């Protein structure tokens, strides 16, 4: 096939093909177990994220409600000053409407002192 060799001479491919392939392989090359871990991690992380997005607002709202209640209870327990040096210890007082100008009415609710608490 001498004729064919003359008609179809062997051509040299452009240089740089192998290094291009090596770069591509290096970019794609990740061990299987690493890819597996990434996949499992992503599979677990996505539902966890969804649950977190659903749960966090409720949790925050609950926390805010609890904090507000705690503050309200604390204020109630400590009790406001009744004026003129009067204080309610271990209880709360609510001023009620009074029919007479020189009479003040308070509804006082006491909280039992915890055992072992200081006097």
């Amino acid at each position, binding site marked *: 096939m001498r004729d*064919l060799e*003359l*008609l*179809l001479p062997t*051509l040299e*491919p452009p240089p740089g*093909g*192998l290094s291009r392939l090596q770069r*591509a392989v290096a970019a794609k090359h990740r061990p299987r177990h690493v890819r597996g871990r990434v996949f499992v991690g992503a599979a677990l992380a996505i539902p966890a994220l969804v649950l977190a997005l659903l749960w966090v607002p409720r949790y925050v709202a609950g926390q805010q409600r609890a904090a507000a209640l705690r503050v309200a209870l604390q204020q109630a327990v400590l009790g406001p000053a009744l004026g003129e040096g009067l204080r309610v210890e271990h209880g709360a007082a609510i001023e009620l409407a009074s029919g007479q100008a020189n009479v003040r009415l308070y509804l006082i609710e006491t909280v039992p002192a915890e055992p072992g608490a200081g006097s």
Partner: protein
Amino acid sequence: MSLRDDALYASYRRLQKPLFNVLYRQLWQAEECEDVIHDAYVRVWARRASVAESSLDALVWTTALNLARNRLRWRKLWRHTTLDEDLPQPGPAPSSALAALEVRRALQRLPAASREVLLLSEFSGLCGREIAALLHIPPGTVASRKHHAVAQLKALLGESSHA
């Protein structure tokens, strides 16, 4: 039986030149040939878990030829003709660019199946049986297609030289 990267690179070194020569005579664009070779190896690498080193070269050949066929089909579909008329530096003969162009036109006029067999026989280094396995045709068909391709190529080149 996962493929190692050094086996892939060794195959690339081994097949780069034959692949380029076969593909170039079909696509006639050096850059596109490089892309096809690159893509073929990247695709094989992507399936490395199921590729044995013993079948690596055959798989690369099959993948590269399929990619080249797809590109030719795509070109035909969009009636795309290449603007790149430059041949990479050929050997001493055919010496003139005109002769190279004649060979190119003659090859383009060959039936795709015959051209593929002819080019594989010339450049791949594969024997008739291996080419037959690669193209999923009987070995006898390889021989007959090659014979017809050579005769037709000579006739076409004879025509053009007389014209």
